[in-house]
């Protein structure tokens, strides 16, 4: 990852959130003394099992929930500040779309909330629909869509305002592997442009692929935090990858290693992961396919999101 500026755009200090019942009695302590700083331009992963407080923390950052105690600043302002939200894009855990609107109408509506000019709005909608592979379904009601297609609309609405801070809660949920790869590539492209991304996900492979730093939450508090490489590196062992060698050469190498470490080393053949294999198969099929009713795989990224 390239060097990032050090300015913290999200500052959380001793955050506590207690949900109460109808009678105002404490029910659940969802966040318990959370301390967090997210720097400008980094991709920050929020991990944790179900109920660990990830989505609650995100909603507090957006002013959708009130903190019970603690301090939260986003771009140096309180989360409820309306002007700050113009710089944020949010993809909720579920797509939260109006079922009776079409993708075009949905994006047009959100674009109006950001006071985008009609020309800019139309251009961005066009690019986002192309990017998410929904151009052919632009005039169908969202209520008819599959979960994955609705998710793509959700992603598009999160990016309509070209936000500085993008908060993605389970962005790849419901997406096919092609879509997952596209979302990850998009996050990397946005980060390269200096955008800050907060990614909350259960899919550890996705987080590992893209995040600079992660925090692992459990029971409302952070249990581990740091850069992905630092957290995952196993310094006590080494892996070598090399082309296949003749049996004699391999035998000599193994004997030498066995002599040095005193036990049998692990040997296997490297393999591509299932995602890479899947993408190759779909790419091949896409070249010969004539028509598709669902989302169409596309490498296109909205121009306004990736231009410097």
């Amino acid at each position, binding site marked *: 990852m390239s060097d990032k500026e050090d300015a913290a755009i999200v500052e959380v200090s001793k955050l506590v959130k207690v*949900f109460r019942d109808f009678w105002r009695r404490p029910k659940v302590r969802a966040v318990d003394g959370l301390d967090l700083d997210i720097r400008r331009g980094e991709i920050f992963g929020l991990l944790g099992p179900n109920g660990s407080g990830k989505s609650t923390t995100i*909603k507090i950052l*957006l*002013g*959708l*929930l*009130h903190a019970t105690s603690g301090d939260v600043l986003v771009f140096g302002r309180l989360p409820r500040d*309306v*002007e*700050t*939200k*113009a710089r*944020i894009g*949010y993809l*909720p855990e*579920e797509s*939260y*779309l*109006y079922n*009776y*609107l079409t993708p075009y109408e949905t994006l047009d*509506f*959100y674009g*109006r*909330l*950001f*006071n985008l000019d009609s020309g800019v709005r139309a251009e961005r909608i066009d690019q986002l629909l192309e990017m998410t592979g929904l151009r052919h379904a632009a*005039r169908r*009601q969202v209520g008819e869509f599959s979960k994955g297609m609705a998710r793509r609309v959700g992603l598009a*609405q999160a990016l309509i*305002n070209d936000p500085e801070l993008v908060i993605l809660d389970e962005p790849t949920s419901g997406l096919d592997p092609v879509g997952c790869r596209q979302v990850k590539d998009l996050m990397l492209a946005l980060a390269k442009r200096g955008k800050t991304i907060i990614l909350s996900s259960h899919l550890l492979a996705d987080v590992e692929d893209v995040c600079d730093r992660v925090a692992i939450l459990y029971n409302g508090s952070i249990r581990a935090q740091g850069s992905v490489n630092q957290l995952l590196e196993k310094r006590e062992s080494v892996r070598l990858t090399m082309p296949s060698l003749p049996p004699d050469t391999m035998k000599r190498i193994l004997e030498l290693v066995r002599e040095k470490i005193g036990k049998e080393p692990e040997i296997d053949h490297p393999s591509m992961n299932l995602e890479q294999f899947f993408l190759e198969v779909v790419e091949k099929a896409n070249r010969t396919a004539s028509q598709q009713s669902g989302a169409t795989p596309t490498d296109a990224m909205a121009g306004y999101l990736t231009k410097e």
Partner: protein
Amino acid sequence: MMLRIKQFLALAGLTAVEALRQPICILLAVSGVVLIAALPLVIMHTFGEDGKQVRDGALAFHFVFGLFIAGHAAGTMLSREMKSGTASAVLSKPVSRELFFLSKFAGITAVVVLFSVCAAAATLLSERVAEKFYFTSGLTGYMTDNQTGTMLVCAPLAACFVAALVNYRFKRPFASTAFVMLMFFLVLVLLVCGLFDVTGRWMPYDIGVQWRILPVSLLITMALVVLTAIALTISTRFEMVPTMVLCGAVFLLGLMSDYVLGRYAGSSRLCGFLYAVVPNWQNFWTVDALAGGGSVPLKYILSAGYYAVIYTAGILCLGMLSFRHTEMK
């Protein structure tokens, strides 16, 4: 300021479109209109009181179906949005909670007003269809206006037909198109029928159409707007079913407030307080003023309008305060 206005219009427009596209909305509207249209068929042989009874029944249907539409729309547009998360999605944008709440009110009010136009037109037509005793140069005796009745019954059918055609050809949503077409056809039928008398002679806008019913419909519309504000405020804390139940309770209590609370308002502080706080729907129910050929004076309409505006503003302030502290789970 311009941004806020644009956001308000966008949100209000979306609310109205979303409400109109829900099948329950067109179902309630068509049901209301059909029931109003059917009144002349079931009210007969009442010693010349058919017109009055049809009129009273139609206005009652206007009120009740308007209550259902307002209550359902408020519950769906706010409490269900909060539950489903679309409210969170919108509030994560640069939109204040107060603006969001007020735009919901504006959008639902637009739908209620549209329904009121349909109901008012249907009421005028239905009253004209009702059997009456005519004593004119060309006609003496009891007669129903069958031509108008036929056109009135055909209006919702035509609206649904056109909506189906538009849906098939242009893939536009059926429900919202049908609602707008319903209003269009009813108003068209009203304007056309007003040009002829009951025997079909050219007599533009004579007593054949009882235009004095319109102020009463306007007062009912005002009451529905107040109900919309109440329903929306309740839905900041309760889900759709409790919202509709509580709205029904407020409606019933308001209808009876003169008798249940008003009688004791002078002697009991609690009754006096409740009498002031509970909306008095009798202020908006003025059908008795039409008896004997009377009408509702303009001064009365203005004072009722003033009451509606003040009351609505107060309820909306309460609603905004409640919504400000509502958590978007």
